[in-house]
């Protein structure tokens, strides 16, 4: 196919050609970035938590009056919950994955370091990793004799007494890799407000509750501190029993001590859903806008194509009379669209890159992977060809006799 006649025709319709190119370029730039954001969000929605989500329940209560014997009450609650049919394991905790409150601390590798190395979240509670179902990949779990009670730890901290503070911890693999890249973490020490903690175990993954920075989502440590916050996690034997066990467990807790209010009672899988609901809404919106953009662009190409065909009816007739076949005419319009789309895509790629740079600065998005460029180009070429097919076929159907008619 000779493209020179096409170029010379386009040169005579500069404005229209320019508009088609501009539309394709803008669509290309916006869609590339939108699809990139969609992928980021989908990745986030499927973030690994490292816990047995399908079998976990979360119950949080709050006392109505002032209580003194928190520890005895916790023991009573835990014993009762353990007796609920279907419960495998229970723990009294300070926070849960996908919850909205968290305890966090600055971690240093050297107490004299001025700026902290990273910020990690701290899970407290005897049996917390066993109940959550995290996977231990090195070392050991925390033992009962590692544990200390929260109130004692608080008093020890206020008195600056290091003996009253736990000195071992279990951390996640990602945190270990961040702190000591390529080295075994077991036996190494980390520091949190001047107190040293020795890493005795590493778990594969344990997500932090409130995630404000996705890259730090797995910086988690478990400290051997017993808490009595009226907050419990339960693991059940069979996911099918979850609802029933939750109901029975809440009833049991209310029965033991009615002078408290149930603040939260959730299946962990539902908490996960809620946690990412904004990401899901944003994904839906972006998909909608992308589809709308592509449809508008395609319809624009159909509309302009139709006009061009109608405008050049006589020329087409002349060409047909001079011996051009139907497929020649079809090919002509298809090539013309391909040329316009190619220029549009070229400009669009540059624009897409520019928009991505802006997003990187203002929304902390990573760099657009190179794969988006060929895929985006292919998508727009396909849409352009599909959109122009109708008008091009109509052009090909113009009979040669049109050439002989005047007006």
């Amino acid at each position, binding site marked *: 196919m000779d493209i020179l006649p096409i170029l010379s025709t386009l040169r005579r319709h500069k*404005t*229209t050609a320019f*508009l*088609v190119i*501009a*539309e394709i370029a*803008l*669509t290309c730039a*916006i869609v590339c970035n*939108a699809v990139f*954001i969609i992928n980021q969000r989908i990745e986030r929605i499927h973030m690994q938590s490292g816990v047995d989500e399908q079998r976990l329940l979360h119950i949080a209560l*709050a*006392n*109505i*009056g*002032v209580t003194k014997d928190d520890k005895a009450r916790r023991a009573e609650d835990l014993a009762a919950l353990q007796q609920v049919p279907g419960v495998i394991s229970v723990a009294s905790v300070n926070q849960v994955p996908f919850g909205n*409150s968290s*305890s966090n601390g*600055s971690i240093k590798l050297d107490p004299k370091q*001025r*700026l*902290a190395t990273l910020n990690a979240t701290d899970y407290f509670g005897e049996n917390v990793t066993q109940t959550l179902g995290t996977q231990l990949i090195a070392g050991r779990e925390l033992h009962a004799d590692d544990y200390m009670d929260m109130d004692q*730890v*608080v008093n020890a*901290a*206020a008195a*600056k007494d290091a003996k009253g503070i736990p000195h071992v911890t279990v951390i996640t693999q990602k945190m270990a890799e961040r702190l000591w890249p390529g080295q075994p973490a077991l036996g190494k020490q980390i520091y949190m*407000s*001047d107190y040293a903690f020795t890493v005795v175990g590493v778990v594969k993954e344990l997500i932090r509750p409130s995630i404000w920075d996705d890259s730090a989502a797995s910086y988690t440590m478990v400290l051997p501190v017993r808490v009595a916050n009226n907050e419990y996690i339960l693991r059940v034997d069979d996911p099918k029993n979850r609802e029933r066990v939750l109901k029975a467990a809440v009833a049991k807790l209310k029965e033991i001590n009615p002078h408290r*209010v149930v*603040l939260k009672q959730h299946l962990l899988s539902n908490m996960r859903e*809620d946690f990412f*609901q*904004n990401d899901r*809404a*944003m994904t839906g*919106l*972006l998909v909608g*806008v992308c589809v*709308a*953009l592509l449809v*508008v*662009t395609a*319809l*624009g190409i159909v*509309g*302009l194509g139709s*006009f*061009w065909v*109608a*405008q050049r009816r006589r020329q087409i007739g002349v060409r047909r009379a001079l011996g051009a076949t139907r497929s020649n005419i079809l090919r002509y319009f298809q090539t013309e669209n391909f040329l316009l789309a190619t220029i549009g895509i070229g400009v669009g790629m540059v624009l897409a890159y520019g928009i991505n740079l802006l997003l990187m600065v203002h*929304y902390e998005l990573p760099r657009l992977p190179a794969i988006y460029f060929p895929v985006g180009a292919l998508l727009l070429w396909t849409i352009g060809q599909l959109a122009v097919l109708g008008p091009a076929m109509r052009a090909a159907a113009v009979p040669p006799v049109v050439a002989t008619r005047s*007006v």
Partner: protein
Amino acid sequence: MLGYYFDLALRSLRRNKMLTALMVVAIALGIGASMTTLTVLHVLSGDPLPGTSSTLFYPQVDPRDMDGYEEGKRPPEQVSWVDGMNLLRAKRADRQALMTGGAVPVQPAQSNIDPFFSDARYTSSDFFPMFKVPFLYGRPWSESEDGAKARVVVISRTLNEKLFGGKDSVGQTLRMKDTAFQVVGVIDLWRPSPRFYDLNMDSYGSLEDVFVPLSTARDVHFEHSGSTDCWGTGGGDEEHAETSPCVWLQFWVQLNDSGKVAAYRDYLVHYSQEQKTLGRFQRPPNAQLPSLMEWLDINKVVPGDVRLQTWLALGFLLVCLVNTVGLMLAKFLRRSGELGVRRALGASKREVFAQLLVESGVIGLAGGIFGLLLAFVGLWLVRKQPSSYAALAHMSSGMLLVTFLLAVGATLLAGLLPAWRACQITPALQLKSQ
């Protein structure tokens, strides 16, 4: 003449219904999407206290130790108990209030309502006049009640309806955490958005239901919630909250003129120096006094997703407009013959231009009307979203007008180029080629 052009435009648009529909729908979609997101952005980035916000300031001092010190970084976002109390008692501003959030167990007198937890704010008496909080019944508590740790409570209209059937409940008793409080006031409907005074809580959430003096809340061990930031050996537990090196309170002041603002800034620097001399502060004085709107800006209160959506919608509108420009251009140029005849019959360039602009204006008007409908649907969809700001997404009369002007203005702008190109034709040439 305009009527005639209008008639011509309608005829022309009717001649090719598909194309007209395509242009109108494209503009409507672009306008609808842009207006939905712009309305949300407008609502979320609004002034929570119009008329008052310019006199409200958020003093910040830096009480942390040298650990993690970096020059030029902002002080902590909240104040510690000691600094908060010092600044509150110094009374250097026209009004000042110290506060924090929490949740309290409410024990209704009626046996048919189970005890429940309500969001609460523990604050000092100036909170109410400083933020111009409207009262339905009663009054705020007084400064002396602050000092006396009085068991008094101000409740929201919502809670008053739930517990007292909406009647004037001033003087009634409300039990919370096994303690009896006397209701002194009921706040009328009031929802500053964003809820600027404590950005640790849901920024666009509804008003707290319970307000008690901060001193009382500490006395009866009401639990505080929100963010607690500690340094050194601070553990952030409730028991040691007054003495531990932690920031967990918000402090607001009202300063009525710029002279007082400057004086207060000096005072904060002076205070920091004094505390450093006393050995409490270690860092060089780093006092800040952002105004309310500056404070919202610093904290990037408007969700990033909302800004992103606005840009996305504007990009979409741009594509729709480019699309419309292309289609109109093709359409106008196709009518070169007709326009040539008009020109030959004596219509001036300017008249042809006006005629074509009317035609694009009609499309803009139709697109604007449909776009507005789509914006209402869009806002309805936003309100169905789970975010706390969703309920705030309502179209205001100002935004309504903007929508319309944007739709018609954008399409007229889009019509300019095609109309100008179309009236450049030479009548003779057009007539000949026929």
